[in-house]
């Protein structure tokens, strides 16, 4: 079998696109191999026994809350990853190619964010900044006040800054890693600096950074439970609620783990799709 696969690989001409695992017929059937089938059966047996032998009678009462928590976790994740990345691009660019007046603050920002616990940042923003605001009448009177008195803006801000800090560093490396010749060719043809950034530099940097960004998005997902500490009801805090109400500990946590696993799977899948938009043999 392995001999066969090796032979077919040799016949692929260099010029064609790489054949991905899911489109290669020889590899698509791999999961039908005996040991895999046994593993799948064991997995199903575990899930089945969890369903039959553990208590799930509380589930219907918390269905709505779980969906709400799930939704909140997902949108906080998406919004903070998106906004964080938008901040990371200038942070990375400033460090990779900016003048010192931009590069130094950007490096400080990334160092501070990466050097302190996210929980600390979250609490500094919520309990620190959030408790300062009400002292100022003009803030209390402003149109932003209805938002500033809630917890979620602080959660979104803290998670966005955190993602920006980590990804700023990733993007710095990605910008610096684009071969000089790629940019020189753009300059040689009279491209303006912003056009070079938009058409050549940024796309290649993002493509280089994508695998890392995917990993960081997964880490970001697993940072979201921290928002429960500032009263934002996400997926994780639903599990706590169930435990407090019913003294059932294990089952909600199992469900929680499954939930995070599924979201992680979706993130990884989406990033793979993105990576494939351009074949991966860059420079």
């Amino acid at each position, binding site marked *: 079998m392995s001999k066969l696969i090796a032979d077919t690989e040799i016949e692929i001409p*260099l*010029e*064609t*696109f790489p054949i991905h695992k899911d489109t290669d017929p020889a590899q698509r059937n791999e999961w039908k191999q005996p040991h895999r089938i046994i593993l799948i059966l064991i997995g199903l047996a575990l899930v089945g026994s969890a369903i039959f032998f553990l208590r799930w009678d509380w589930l219907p009462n918390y269905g709505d809350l779980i969906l709400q928590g799930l939704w909140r976790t997902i949108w906080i994740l998406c919004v903070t990853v998106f906004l964080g990345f938008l901040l990371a691009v200038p942070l990375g660019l400033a460090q990779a190619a900016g003048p010192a007046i931009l590069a130094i603050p950007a490096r400080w920002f990334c160092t501070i964010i990466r050097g302190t616990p996210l929980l600390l940042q979250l609490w500094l923003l919520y309990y620190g900044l959030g408790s300062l605001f009400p002292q100022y009448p003009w803030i209390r009177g402003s149109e932003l006040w209805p938002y500033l008195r809630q917890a979620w803006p602080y959660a979104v801000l803290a998670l966005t800054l955190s993602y920006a800090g980590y990804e700023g560093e990733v993007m710095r490396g990605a910008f610096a890693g684009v071969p000089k*010749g*790629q940019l*020189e*060719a*753009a*300059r*040689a*043809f*009279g*491209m*303006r600096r912003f*056009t070079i950034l938009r*058409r*050549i530099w940024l*796309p*290649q940097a993002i*493509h280089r950074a994508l695998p890392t960004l995917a990993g960081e998005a997964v880490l970001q997902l697993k940072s979201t439970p921290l928002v429960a500490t500032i009263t934002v009801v996400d997926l994780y805090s639903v599990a706590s609620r169930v435990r407090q109400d019913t003294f059932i500990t294990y089952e909600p946590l199992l469900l929680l783990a499954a939930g995070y696993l599924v979201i992680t799977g979706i993130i990884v899948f989406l990033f793979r799709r993105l990576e494939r938009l*351009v*074949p991966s*043999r*860059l*420079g």
Partner: protein
Amino acid sequence: MTVSDAVSTDPLQPQSAEQAEAIHVWNLHKRFGALEVLKGVSMTARDGDVVALIGGSGSGKSTFLRCINFLENPTSGVIRINGEDIEMVSDGAGGQYPANRRQIERIRSRLGMVFQNFNLWQHMTLLQNVIEVPVHVLGMKRDEAIAIGEQLLERVGLSAKRDVYPAYLSGGQQQRGAIARALAIQPRVMLFDEPTSALDPELVGEVLKVIGDLAKEGRTMLLVTHEMKFAREVASHVMYLHNGIVEEEGPPEELFGSPKSERLKQFIRTVS
């Protein structure tokens, strides 16, 4: 107009009106720190000229080419392209840089540069590479650019590869693609910076053939090359650079047939 101290004594001013000047360089100096790479190089290329720059490594020939589209800023000297003087300002540290970035960008977009390492944009297919500058620099309509791009790819024999990414092309194919990309801007002058030096020997021929065809159709070209035989065939004028000065120059038959300077004689012996 220019910073150079000697514009008025420029001996290479156009004397006749036979062909318009495409590139005119006078007394070009380039210094990297303490190292003076170019020590006063002058050159005029009229429309239809094929000027070959030859010389050993470190002779300054690539630097000279890169100064012409300001990938390197010359330390001093006059550069006039399409009859347009490039204004330079002093950087206060003995060097100078273009006063007007837009002017440089405009001039660059008329010079088709071909690099030693191809430098096709890796995240774009071949056709996307070819239409990139026409669409995003010259403001050409996409459909029009694609039509021209397809013609150019056909000319360099790469029609079948239009939707392939550079990483999946051989060096020779990439370089021919890079030539199509340079042609797509309808350049006044093509600049070749050692276009075959990074190629496997068996791929050199296909690239030289494309360049030779361009020369035959009367395209203005500046060619830095190590291929002496090829330079002799296609060039209308050959310049031999040594240690940053033009040691000898003239028509190829003269230069290769009866070299005057001892260094050139020795150079021709060692490379052929």
